C-alpha cells in the first residue's frame, strides 16, 4: 500500500468523509500536512490528542483518527491545558482558526504562551470567520471587506507570531497552504519542540473571503500566497526594502525555556520526596 493510502487509512476517519469544507478551501491541505507531520514526528497514535475550537478548521477534529475533542469557541487551549497537566505524556495538537484563536481565544493564547506549556497550536489563518459566512476577524488585514465590514475593516490585524513571542511562546513558525511540504515540516518541528509552539498556516477561503475581496478563486489565491511569501532563510540576505509586503515563512523563532507541565511535576515530586 502506498504511504499516503496507509496514512489515510490509519489517521483519518474515512467513514466521516467527504468533509464539509467548500471547494478551494485550504483546510484539507493543512489537515493533510498535520497528518503527515504526526507521522514524521513518529508519535505513537494512542498518545496523540487533537483538540479543536469551533469554526471551519476545527471540524478537522472529526476527521482525524485519534482521541479528538471538539470544544468551545476560542477555548481549545484551555481544554488542552487540562489534558496536558493530567497526562503529561500526551502529544497535543490544538487546531484553531484565526477568529477562534485570536478573538475569544486571545486570552488563552497568550497565557498558554506565557506558561510555555507543551502544546502544539496550529492556527489555520484564512483571515475571516468562514463558518458563519464571512465576518472580519482579528487577523483580517486592514482594508479588506467582510460582511461585518462592508466598507473594509479599519481595525489593524494581529501579527500572531509576534504576539506569541511577546507573550512567551518558545517556537513560532509560519507556513502556507500553497507549500504543503514546508508546512508539514514546520508542524513536525513544532511537535518535537518542548514548550508552547505556534504554527500559523495561511490558508485560502475563496468563498467567504476571496470572493468579497475580488482575490480570484483558490488557484489565484494560492498563487498570490506563494508569490507574496518568502522564507526566513532567503529573507536573511535581502534588504528590508525588498521585503516590504512579503510574508515570512519558516521557523521565525525557536528557543529553549522551562516547560510548564514538566516543571510543575518536578516541583511536586521534590515536595513529596
Amino acid at each position, binding site marked *: 500500500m502506498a504511504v499516503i493510502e496507509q496514512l489515510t487509512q490509519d489517521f483519518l476517519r474515512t467513514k466521516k468523509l467527504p468533509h464539509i469544507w467548500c471547494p478551494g478551501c485550504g483546510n484539507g491541505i493543512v489537515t493533510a500536512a498535520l497528518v503527515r507531520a504526526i507521522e514524521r514526528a513518529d508519535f505513537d497514535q494512542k498518545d496523540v490528542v487533537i483538540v479543536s475550537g469551533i469554526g471551519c478548521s476545527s471540524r478537522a477534529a472529526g476527521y482525524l483518527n485519534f482521541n479528538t475533542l471538539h470544544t468551545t469557541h476560542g477555548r481549545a487551549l484551555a481544554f488542552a491545558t487540562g489534558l496536558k497537566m493530567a497526562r503529561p505524556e500526551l502529544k497535543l495538537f490544538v487546531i484553531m482558526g484565526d477568529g477562534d484563536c485570536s478573538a475569544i481565544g486571545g486570552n488563552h493564547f497568550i497565557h498558554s504562551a506565557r506558561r510555555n506549556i507543551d502544546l502544539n497550536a496550529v492556527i489555520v489563518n484564512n483571515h475571516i*470567520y468562514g463558518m458563519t*459566512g464571512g*465576518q472580519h476577524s*482579528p487577523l483580517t488585514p486592514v482594508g479588506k471587506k467582510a*460582511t461585518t465590514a462592508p*466598507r473594509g*475593516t479599519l481595525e489593524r490585524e494581529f501579527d500572531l507570531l509576534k504576539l506569541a513571542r511577546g507573550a512567551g511562546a518558545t517556537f513560532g513558525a509560519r507556513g502556507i497552504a500553497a507549500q504543503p511540504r514546508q508546512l508539514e515540516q514546520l508542524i513536525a518541528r513544532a511537535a518535537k519542540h518542548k514548550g508552547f509552539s505556534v504554527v500559523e498556516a495561511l490558508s485560502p477561503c475563496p468563498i467567504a473571503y476571496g470572493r468579497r475581496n475580488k482575490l480570484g478563486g483558490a488557484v489565484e489565491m494560492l498563487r498570490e500566497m506563494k508569490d507574496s511569501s518568502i522564507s526566513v532563510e532567503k529573507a536573511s540576505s535581502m534588504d528590508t526594502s525588498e521585503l516590504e509586503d512579503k510574508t515570512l515563512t519558516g521557523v521565525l523563532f525557536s528557543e529553549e525555556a522551562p516547560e510548564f507541565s514538566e516543571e510543575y511535576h518536578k516541583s511536586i515530586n521534590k515536595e513529596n520526596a
Partner: protein
Amino acid sequence: MAYEMLSGSQAAAAAVQRAGVDLVAAYPITPQTAIVETLANYEAKGELGGDFVSVESEYAALACCYGAAAAGARVFTATASHGLAYMHEVIHWCSGARVPVVMVNVNRAIGAPWCLDPDQGDSLSQRDTGWMQIYCSGAQEVFDTVLQAYVLSESLLLPCLVVFDGFYISHTYEAVDIPEKEKTLEFVGEKRFKPQVVPGNPVNLHGLTTGDNQILLVRNRHESMIKALDLFKQVNKKFEGYFARSYKAVDSVIPPGSKTVFVAAGSTVETIRWALPGLKDCGLIQLRMFRPYPAEELCAVLEAHDVERVIVVDRNCSIGMGGIFSQELKAALYNMENPPIVEDLLLAGGIDLTIDMLHRVLETTAEGKNADQKWGVDVR
C-alpha cells in the same frame, strides 16, 4: 403599509434601524449572524443612523453596549446560544446597573455536543438575570416587539431580551409590514433615560456595597420589572394607535367548549394555531412575555374558559426537573381553586413540533409515574 418579504433576522434588523439606535455592537454566531450583517450593511450605506462596532466576543459586544448606554446611547446587540451563555456575567451587570439595552437572542441549543437546533435553554437560562424576556412567534412580531422593547426598556431602566427560534423564525421569510421610519421613530420617541456618565460630573459607579443595600436594589429592580406587565398593555395600546395591531403578554385562541389548552412560546405557537381546527376541543395560549411572568393573566384566561387539561410545549428542559415553561406555569396555578392538570411535551434539543405529535399527545392520557412528562421523540 409597505410589506416586505423578510426573514425573522432581517425583520429584527429592520426594527433596530427604525428605532433610532446610536450604537450596535456585534459578534457573529449562527443562527443570529444575519441580524448583525444586515445592520452592518445599513451602516455601510449610511442608513443605520448610528455606529456599528464589530467586537472580539459576545462578552465584549454586551459590555460595549453597556458602556454606550451608560453614556446615554440607545443600543442594540444580538446573539444566540453559546454567545448568550458567554455574556452571562454582563447580562446580570446590565440589569444591576439599570441601563436600557435591547438584545435579540435567537434560540439555539447549547453544547456539548455542538447543535444548531432551536432549544430554548439559552434564553431560559438567563431567566433570573433581571432582563425582561419576550418570545416572538413570527417575523412581524419580531419587528414590532423590538420597537416596543425600546419603550419598555427605557421606561423601566431594565434591559429587554427579545427572543425567537433559530431557523424556524430567523431564516424563514414572511411578509412583514414595515412602517415608515418617521412613524416608528415617533412611536419609540425620545430617549427616556439620562446618561450615567456625564463629563464634568464625576461619579463612581457600581462600587462595593453590602447585602443590606443590595437587597433594596434587588427589590427595586423586581418592583420595576413587575410594572412591565401594565406598561406592556399601555405600550401596545399606543402601538395599535400607530400601526393598527397589538399584542398581549398572554394571547389565546380558545374556542367555546375547549377542555384542553396548549401553552407555547415562540414558533411552536404558529404550528399549534395552524393545527387547532383539527384538534378536538382544544385551545391555545401564547405565552409572549416570560419576564415579568404574567401569572395573573394566565390564571384568568384558564379560569375564564374552565380549562381541564393544559399541555405545555417546552422546547427546553431543566435537567432534573423538566420543562421550564411547565414548571413556571405550575407555580402560577398554585393559588387557583380548580387548577387544570398540567402535562409537559418536551422538545428539548430543539426538535420540531409536528401536527402528528399534537394528536398523539392528546391521545395519551397522563397516568402512572412521570406520565405528565412526554418526550417529543416518543410521540412523533
